């Protein structure tokens, strides 16, 4: 009997003990799927420059023979190879002719294994640009464009974005990096009437290129003791101006080799905005605190102009007439034909917004394109009749490249319009 009881107890004990494997996770199959050729830009209705390549790499097994289905999701374009087989190198290709339906277009590539089981999908994105329409771009580098300068002599356009300088390629929506041997954050680019290009950075340095941006030289520092940002502007007489943001203003008449003080008569906070030289030799300065000054001695001494308040930007026409953007209670465009002794209001609008902006006045082939923050872009040919060109309340920066392409900046995006 005892043996029986012992057997029962031992059996009970043994049966209560069971061994299971320890917890673990094992990768049993896997592929990396990477799209090459995404983010291309091209003209709507044309093939993108490069093929779309989907590379499928097996982590345990080969991917050769797997099926990739390409399909247009948005934009309305066409594909040369909707169904491609992964080759021995893990690649599947197709070519993409973009459509006209949307600016940003998407092709989806779905990967199926040898048994037809769906594994994963990846998207290719392209940007198709249409003539005579505004196209939106949220991709870099231009989405963060901050400054732009057009060289009408050499038909070149440069921009500053993300602290670097880029040059426009033969397609107005493509930009190539311009290498400048410097370590700061480039925040301004300017071009004079002879095609000499200037750029300044966060270290208070100015760089100059006389060969379309191929080579850059470091100018003498405008303010040797200043380690920070400077404002830089090239006036219509090709002098280069720089300021530290307060009343310190210098000028170079020799492409940045030497700098002379030009701050006589300026007050605290009178940083550099714009400077134009009147045909009679008088200089007009707009400062960062919206004041207007004039100088009859090439900038040695400045005299405050009290005939207008809140001058946010000035622009001088070839005949010496001065246009001023002045948001005083309302968005106003003022004009002076007597060297700022008096101003006439040409245009005004109430926008119910506190938005400010930059580069309000742009001129191309007889037409002024004027940015009105909180409203959009208006046009005029005679400064008498103004027309709404594009109502977009988000715009705050505006340029025209050397080919007349309108480039407007909104919040985290850029807008292009190529008028044919």
């Amino acid at each position, binding site marked *: *009997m*005892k043996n*029986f*009881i012992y057997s*029962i*107890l031992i*059996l*009970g004990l043994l*049966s*209560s003990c*069971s061994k*299971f*494997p*320890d*917890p*673990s*996770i*094992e*990768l*049993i*199959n*896997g*592929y*990396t*799927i*990477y*799209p090459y050729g995404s983010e291309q830009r091209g003209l709507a209705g044309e093939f993108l420059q490069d093929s779309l390549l989907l590379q499928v790499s097996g*982590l345990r097994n080969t991917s050769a023979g797997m099926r990739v289905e390409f399909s247009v999701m948005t934009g309305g374009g066409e594909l040369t190879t909707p169904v491609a087989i992964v080759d021995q190198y893990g690649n599947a290709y197709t070519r993409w002719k973009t459509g006209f339906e949307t600016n940003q277009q998407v092709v989806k590539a779905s*990967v199926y294994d040898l048994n037809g089981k769906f*594994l*994963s*999908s*990846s*998207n290719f994105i392209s940007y198709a640009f249409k003539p005579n329409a505004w196209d939106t771009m949220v991709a870099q580098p231009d989405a963060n464009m901050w400054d732009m300068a057009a060289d009408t002599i050499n038909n070149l356009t440069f921009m500053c974005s993300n602290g670097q300088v880029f040059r426009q390629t033969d397609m107005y929506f493509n930009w190539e990096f311009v290498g400048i041997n410097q370590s700061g954050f480039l925040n301004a680019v300017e071009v004079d009437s002879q095609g000499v290009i200037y750029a300044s950075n966060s270290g208070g340095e100015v760089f100059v290129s006389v060969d379309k941006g191929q080579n850059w030289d470091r100018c003498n520092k405008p303010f040797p003791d200043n380690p920070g940002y400077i404002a830089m502007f090239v006036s219509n007489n090709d002098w280069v101006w720089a300021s530290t943001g307060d009343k310190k203003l210098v000028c170079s008449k020799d492409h940045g080799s030497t700098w002379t003080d030009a701050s006589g008569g300026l007050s605290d906070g009178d940083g550099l905005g714009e400077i134009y030289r009147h045909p009679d030799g008088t200089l007009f300065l707009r400062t960062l605190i919206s004041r207007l000054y004039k100088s009859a001695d090439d900038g040695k001494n400045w005299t405050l102009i009290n005939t207008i308040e809140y001058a946010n930007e000035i622009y001088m026409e070839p005949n010496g007439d001065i246009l001023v953007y002045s948001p005083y209670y309302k968005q106003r465009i003022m004009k002076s034909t007597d060297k700022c002794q008096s101003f006439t209001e040409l245009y005004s609008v109430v926008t119910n917004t506190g938005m400010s902006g930059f580069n309000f006045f742009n001129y191309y082939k007889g037409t002024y394109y004027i940015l009105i923050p909180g409203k959009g872009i208006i046009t005029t040919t005679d400064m008498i009749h103004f027309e709404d060109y594009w109502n977009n309340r988000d715009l705050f920066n505006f340029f025209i490249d050397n080919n007349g392409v309108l480039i407007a900046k909104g919040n985290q995006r850029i807008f292009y319009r190529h008028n044919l």
Partner: protein
Amino acid sequence: MKNKFVFSAVILLSLLLTSSAFSQKLTVGLLNGINFTQPQGYFASGKWEVKNGPVAGLFLNYQITKILSVQSEFNYTVINYTHKNYSSDQYMYYPLYENTIYIAPYYYYHSTEEWEFGFYRIPLYLKISTPTKLKLELAMGGYYSFRDHYDLPDYPVYIGFSDTWPYTNTEEPPKHDAGFFYSVGLAYPVTENFNIYMNGRYFSGKKTYIPSVSATNGSAELTFGFGYSGLLKSKKSASNPEHSSDSASHSLTVTPKLGIAVTSNAGSDNNNMYSNATGFSTGLSFMYRLSKHFSLQSELLYERKGYEIKGESNSFFKYTPGSNYTIDNRVNLDYVTLPLLLNVRFGQKLQVYFNTGIYAAMQMNARCTGTAYSSYSNGITYQEYKTTVYDDIDGYMKSSDWGWAIGCGIQYPVLQKYKLDFEFRYNKGFTNIYTNHYNQTPVENEDTEIKNKSYTFSLGFQIPIN
């Protein structure tokens, strides 16, 4: 629910207090053994591995009646806890460039955490013993302990980044603990004054020693010992208990039993995912005869219940809508069960009986094991994983259950006074044992109810207690 457990234990105890003889025997002795430790806490993931440690001490037993005694000890034990996390040689959900600078493991998580505590313990408990030469002993009481040394694990170290930050747990665990003590064992007199013992014991602490999972001490132990009972022995107790007469002769029986069970989850709304699992039931059944046909029956059983789950789910142990995993898992729910049944029997030599009543159960383990397959894609990778599932899921299961039991069986006499017992029993739990301890918001159609159900076939050997 624990009150029901105590109530049942008291009934069992009162059934066995059938003698009023005062033997007044004092026994001192030594015990040695090993523990099988597993903390009690709100576990949700990974394996809390059963670890071993030593147990050694002295005990002192004072016999109050022929079957009731009070006993205390002073013992020392070392408790080790080990938690095994899901280990992987791959950085999960990240492009797996096996042949580039991302050399596995790019990201590493400690796969094993270990704790160690030393305790001096003083249990005090009541023991009831059968008045037979080979004594079956049951004991229950409490204990107080003093922590000695301790060793805590370091927490995860991340490598592959510029910083590594091994976080060392420096919080000192409690210096004292107290809790409950349970024991079942055998005693055998090798001479008139010397007995040898073998016991299965369980210590259940109350204070938290692993804060991350609110875990308290739990230690099952197997001990062996011997005792000297020649101290303070009265003349009355010198007689051999096997030859003493007892007014309760043959009215009380004990039946060691072992059975297999078919168990399932009776609470789910998604029964197509759940299927039966095979479990077991083992322990002792005590029967007190009230009349020729009626008996009161109570038992002390260790039972494995649970269920199997198969299909697509977002969790391993129950149906949560989603296709994150394709699982083939088994959930084991181990209980110490105390039924209280009314037994009706008919027949002379071959007896047929029916019983029914309620049961209370204390959960000892809740565990999910099996396999889960999952795949992941993010546009640049597709990965398939096989997960070997081993989760202690005590944190998702209530610590107790109760329900209704009904059964029938036959008994056939063998060797004159013993009986072979065959029984079929149906158990139905009334409690939703799933507990949302972590206050997770259920998704639509997620199972939030799990109930135990089992059919048990058992074989026993009934022994009359004289």
